[in-house]
């Protein structure tokens, strides 16, 4: 039996450009669990993802983020990545001239220094997963996200996840911009990757991804606070009724 994977977010508050976005957020995610994070636009969902990975534009004003007992607040993004945290960005940025192959290999070496995979074996691994997420091999020599469509960017986020093998994964609206077939491919990759040492926090507005990747826990973020928690029934009710009934509480 391996070590338990556990992310504990306690009383987390954060602001962007002086504006308080998260207030006292509490959330625990353990290996083998799938969580959905829902909430109206502007509730702070993407902020939570960015705060977790240590984006420098987001300032933590209180609380803690512990991954397997290690405090991540105050740590650099790369240290958090090494601890096993991963964010699939909602709008991944294009980086002209930075070749996917070189970038991914550097990232992989940093995150798994103990694994001595030859360049060829590494590329074979990447190639096989490129196919699985529906991208052809030519993407390997393209610049990261540069000239990619919205859907291609999302596929690449999942590809990176599979190659880099993080433990706690935040998927920020991974379903937006994907057609039904692409969503199917991506979901299969996610489910194949999922095990009792990994956990997902799926940020979404829609049922269509939650139908494929069934969450045991659903959290609703409103005005920077967790306003409601429940199971998949909660997600269904939101799909049918919106958020007003929670606001009314």
């Amino acid at each position: 039996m391996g070590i338990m994977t556990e992310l504990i977010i306690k009383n987390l508050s954060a602001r962007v450009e002086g504006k308080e976005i998260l207030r006292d957020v509490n959330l625990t995610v353990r290996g083998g669990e799938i969580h959905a994070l829902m909430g109206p636009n502007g509730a702070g969902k993407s902020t939570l993802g960015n705060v977790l990975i240590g984006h420098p534009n987001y300032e933590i004003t209180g609380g803690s983020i512990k991954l397997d007992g290690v405090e991540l607040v105050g740590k650099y993004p790369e240290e958090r990545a090494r601890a096993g945290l991963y964010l699939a960005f909602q709008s991944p940025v294009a980086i002209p001239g930075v070749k996917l192959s070189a970038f991914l290999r550097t990232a992989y070496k940093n995150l798994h220094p103990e694994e001595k995979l030859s360049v060829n074996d590494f590329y074979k691994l990447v190639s096989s997963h490129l196919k699985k997420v529906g991208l052809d091999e030519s993407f390997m020599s393209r610049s990261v996200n540069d000239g990619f469509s919205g859907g291609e960017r999302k596929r690449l986020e999942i590809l990176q996840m599979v190659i880099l093998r993080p433990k706690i994964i935040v998927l920020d609206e991974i379903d937006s911009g994907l057609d039904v077939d692409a969503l199917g491919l991506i979901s299969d990759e996610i489910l194949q990757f999922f095990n009792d040492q990994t956990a997902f926090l799926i940020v979404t507005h829609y049922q269509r991804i939650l139908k494929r990747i069934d969450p045991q826990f659903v959290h609703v973020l409103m005005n920077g606070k967790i306003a409601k928690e429940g199971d998949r029934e909660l997600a269904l009710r939101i799909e049918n009724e919106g958020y007003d009934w929670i606001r009314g509480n």
Partner: protein
Amino acid sequence: MEIQNMSKDEEIEKLLESVKNITSKKSDWEFKDSFKPQYTTGKGLNRKVVEEISDIKNEPDWMRRIRLKALEIFEAKPVPTWGPDLSGIDWENISYYNKPGDSNTNSWDDVPEMIKDTFQKLGIPEMEQKYLAGSVAQYESEGVYHSLRKVWEDKGVVFMDLDSAIREHPDLVKQYFCKAVPITDNKFAALNGAVWSGGSFLYVPKGVHIDMPLQTYFRMNNEGTGQFEHTIVVADEGSSVHYIEGCTAPRWDKNSLHSAIVEIYVNKNAKARYTSVQNWSKSVYNMPTKRAWVEENGQMEWVGGSLGSKVTMLYPSSYLRGPHASASNLNISLAGPGTVKDTGAKALHFAPYTTSKIVAKSISIEDGKAIYRGLLRINKGAVESKSHVQCDALLINDESASYTFPHDEIYEPTATFGHEASVGKIGTEELTYLRSRGLSEDEASSMIVLGFLDDVMREIPMEFAIEMNRLIKMEMSKMGAVG
């Protein structure tokens, strides 16, 4: 297709590893050695010093006369004030000629131990074995080593330091010496004319195509010295050649001066490529004058990487003298903290159907200043000539700066020319994205910088790309905080 990509990447990775292994672990080229020159003219410059240099070299009279004339011109010309501040050049405290020793040999075994050690740390003998058709090594003012593979020697190729060439091929040298760059050209060219020492002479006979590059490596070692090499490359009719220069110096406090002349003659239907990687220490004023004369249907390619130095003023120029002559400049400048890179290119179209292409990329770090300064001249009668200039700047920090001063003189109505310029700043989003995948800040920023250079790197020789790659990564990792 991918397999090819993979193996190329793998090859680059292996080469990078091997480069790492053969260079000193400590801080690469910044090591100093305690070698003292065997002879020096001491500090300062006057007629006596120039005569002394000429005496030591036991030169023909015509050369001595050029030196003395050049000294007069140097003394008469004011220090240029239209560019970066040059007031830090301490003319009186520079020693203008420093002879490392007596030997100039074609066997590394005969090079004095300490100097040999220096070049070994820089990986020169190993490079020579692997990639080069010939090699010259200069230490302070004189060449200490030269070699040329027999196959090229047999075809009449001449490659040696200029001093030796004057002794062995006086007529050939005289034909080209200071023709493209006359001693009247500018103050620094005049200075070079007066005190020049070392540099290379490369002559490629008609129709000879040298398929491996030839390299000269310049090393400055002692502080407060000047290095004034004069290099001449002649690609005779229908020949082709690739000549590479590398330069380094250790880190000093006292300012030093490097003022070279490079003259390249691309004759009819010939092709010459000149690649240089300059990585001087941050106390060096680097003021070379580089020029190519390109005759009918000749092709000249300048590839330059300018790192280090305190101030660099460098504008390799191409004089397109014959119909259908062409020139391209690819230049990468890195302006580190406290440094000024005033670099660019000149293209002068004198003949019909000539083309020039200039791509300049600069990176400014902290308060580093990168300036593009260029001249494009298309004379009347240079019908249907074409030119394209592209300059891109990347600023790493808020206080980093970049300026562009293109200057166009177009006198021919049928000529076409275009300019493109861009300035970008390294972004938090890009950095954070890469870091969130486990890359350190250094790795992320050097990857973004190299990405910015990618389109140039694709067009340049692989060994050069690797060296630039390595140097930029080192420069970025010294930076610490970025953004």
